[in-house]
């Protein structure tokens, strides 16, 4: 049996309290008393740090338990109870959520520290940190929720916060539109999640709707319902984790401040979808078709995003598409039932993607909010710390051994190969090469060669240590996180996989060493080819290319946004306009209008009695009183 520990609820509570406190201070005092930025910054870091300490405590407590009963739970209170549905505000920490907890709080904390420097001088400094704390708190609710409903609270919370933070620079309309887009696209996914939950409840919810009861009763689910649950939940995941067809919001989400991008891409938000699929692995593992769909959607997203990533000229957009692409890998991993590999990629990705984003933020900060890579160049000399750390992040992202990204990506590709998903494996290897290409294209253009904009180059400077220290910590993570799950072929013991095993329903295929070496060999070769092409094209500095033909098509992201606009947004607007201009005034409003007309008529009829002379009112009064007296005297008899 698991233990009940009451500090579990505190983990999300600390950042949420921080959000409330900072928010109130900002709203009520920002005009009267000027709190220093340091004050807000330190206040904002307290919550994440405390959460991280508690996460470590959870980890130690779990480690002390025997593997098969490794979970801690805490029921704060009964949230609601309707018919068979009893929902507790309960928290559950098992190895899976514990792993998520550790890196979410660690990376969240580092990003908060970094933001102290990056957001310096912003007039909405307090508001920013309130949102950031809320974001982290929501993510922790999502991770720790012990039932799909509590998870959904966090799920919606991160959606809200992403909206608030993406449109943080709200003076600019395009930022607000980007925020709207993220929110609306996420809503579409959320509908899938809600429907999935409804199906799940309909299927097996009557005997308990928390994860442990669901897992125990999953055998009672009919295959058709299980498939529906899996697919609908996956729709939710495509929204939150930016997969085809709902990936379009993530690149636009770059409108927010860079630490927000880092938080969205690394620690919170986009990893939620993968986490959710892994959390529901007990259902996904029973429906092979759903797993295949997840895997194929994932790997195709990886391919598509990699193509887009090769032709972007905004440093943050390159990184955004790389995230979409890596998320595709993760889904391919969980799709082929290698849940631990998918989660492990989430884990390593969090380090190197946070690192790359914060590094990009450092570059952007140094160049006074210049994001176009064709205005950069030669920054290696000016920003050595940023350059070195970003280089580590790039190697990890591109999957170069022995950086962390290599091990996790290789694990996914190997799992695809071992389970016989050869198509997924081949696309995955191709995408690995493309990843190496676009990552190093970005690195070479930004840091190598000669400056393209001499004036900006002259003003560039290394960022303050409040920004570079988090970078260095993350770089260490990006370098060494992979060794935590070192496969047996390198003499490791796959610690993460074994750690996660009690939470996940996966069966490790027993495959030959030949396949393992084949997987490693091909992905290293793909990496080498990708970086070779990137170096030959951009290594010595290159002029801004003209995008023609296919490149132009890819630069405009295959016009997917325009397509969605034409086939979804426009018809919706047309329907809305029909309802607004035709249906509403003529159909739905008519009973209301008729009612008001009726009262007008009645009013006109009664108007004649209102003559305005006081004598006449006296007559009415006397008549009324007389009638009352008459009635009274009648009833007395």
């Amino acid at each position: 049996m698991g233990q009940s520990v009451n500090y579990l609820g505190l983990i999300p509570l600390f950042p949420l309290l921080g959000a409330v406190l900072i928010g109130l201070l900002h709203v009520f005092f920002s005009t009267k008393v000027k709190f220093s930025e340091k004050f807000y910054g330190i206040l904002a870091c307290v919550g994440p740090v405390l959460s991280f300490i508690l996460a470590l405590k959870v980890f130690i407590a779990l480690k002390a338990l025997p593997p098969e009963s490794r979970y801690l739970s805490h029921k704060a209170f009964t949230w609601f109870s309707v018919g068979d549905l009893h929902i507790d505000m309960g928290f559950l920490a098992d190895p899976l959520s514990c792993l998520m907890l550790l890196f979410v709080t660690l990376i969240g904390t580092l990003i908060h520290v970094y933001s102290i420097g990056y957001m310096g001088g912003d007039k909405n400094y307090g508001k920013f940190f309130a949102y950031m704390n809320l974001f982290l708190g929501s993510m922790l609710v999502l991770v720790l929720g012990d039932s799909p409903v509590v998870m959904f609270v966090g799920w919606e919370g991160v959606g809200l916060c992403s909206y608030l933070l993406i449109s943080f620079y709200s003076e600019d309309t395009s930022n607000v539109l980007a925020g709207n887009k993220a929110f609306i696209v996420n809503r579409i996914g959320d509908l899938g999640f809600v429907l999935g939950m409804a199906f799940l409840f309909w299927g097996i919810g009557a005997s308990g709707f928390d994860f442990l009861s669901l897992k125990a009763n999953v055998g009672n689910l009919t295959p058709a319902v299980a498939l529906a649950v899996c697919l609908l939940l996956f729709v939710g995941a495509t929204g939150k984790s930016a997969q085809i067809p709902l990936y379009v919001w993530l690149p636009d989400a770059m409108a927010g401040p860079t630490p927000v991008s880092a938080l969205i891409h690394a620690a919170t938000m986009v990893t939620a979808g993968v986490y959710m699929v892994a959390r529901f692995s007990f259902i996904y593992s029973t429906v092979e078709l759903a797993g295949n769909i997840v895997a194929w959607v994932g790997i195709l997203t990886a391919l598509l995003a990699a193509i887009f990533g090769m032709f972007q000229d905004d440093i943050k957009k390159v990184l955004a598409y790389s995230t979409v692409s890596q998320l595709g890998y993760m889904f391919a991993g969980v799709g082929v039932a290698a849940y631990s590999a998918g989660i492990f990629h989430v884990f390593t990705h969090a380090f190197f993607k946070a690192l790359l984003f914060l590094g990009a933020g450092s570059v952007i900060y140094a160049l006074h909010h210049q994001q176009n890579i064709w205005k950069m160049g030669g920054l290696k000399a000016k920003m050595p710390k940023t350059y070195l750390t970003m280089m580590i992040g790039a190697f990890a992202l591109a999957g170069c051994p022995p950086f962390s990204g290599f091990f996790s990506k290789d694990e996914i590709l190997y799992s695809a190969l071992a389970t016989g998903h050869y198509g997924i494996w081949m696309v995955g290897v191709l995408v690995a090469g493309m990843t190496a290409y676009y990552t190093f294209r970005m690195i070479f253009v930004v840091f190598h060669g000669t400056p393209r904009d001499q004036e900006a180059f002259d003003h560039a400077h290394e960022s303050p240590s409040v920004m570079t220290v988090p970078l260095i910590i993350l770089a260490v993570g990006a370098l060494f996180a992979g060794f935590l799950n070192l496969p047996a072929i390198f003499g490791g013991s796959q610690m993460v996989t074994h750690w996660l095993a009690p939470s996940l329903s996966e069966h490790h295929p027993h495959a030959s060493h030949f396949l393992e070496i084949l997987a490693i060999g091909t992905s290293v070769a793909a990496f080498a080819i990708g970086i070779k092409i990137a170096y030959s094209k951009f290594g010595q500095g290159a002029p801004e290319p003209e995008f023609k033909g296919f490149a132009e098509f890819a630069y405009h992201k295959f016009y997917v946004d325009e397509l969605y606009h034409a086939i979804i947004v426009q018809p919706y607007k047309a329907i809305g306009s029909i309802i607004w201009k035709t249906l509403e005034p003529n159909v739905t409003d008519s009973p209301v209008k008729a009612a008001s007309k009726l009262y007008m008529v009645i009013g006109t009829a009664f108007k004649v009695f209102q003559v305005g002379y006081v004598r006449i009112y006296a007559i009415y009064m006397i008549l009324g009183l007389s009638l009352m007296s008459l009635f009274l005297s009648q009833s007395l008899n």
Partner: protein
Amino acid sequence: MIHNYLFLSIILFCLGIVGVISRRNVFTVFMSIELMLNAANLAFVAFSRIHQSMDGHVLAMMVMAVAAAEAALALAVVILLHKHKSKLDTNVFSLLKG
């Protein structure tokens, strides 16, 4: 014997009603209302006598107090009305006409 007082009270009350309904001068209307109040007083006192109790007297005293207060208020209103239109004809004041 005592019933005659009640008949007198009814007659006075009806006179008051007729006055309120038919007269147009604000003062006359006001005086008619006072007449009705006094008719009611008379009835109270007469009933008090019939039932051999003091309740009616108490009520009559209260009606007098109310009438005094009402007179003070009503006269003030009359003055304001006169200031407003320089007339005391009730037909002039017909703002409530629908």
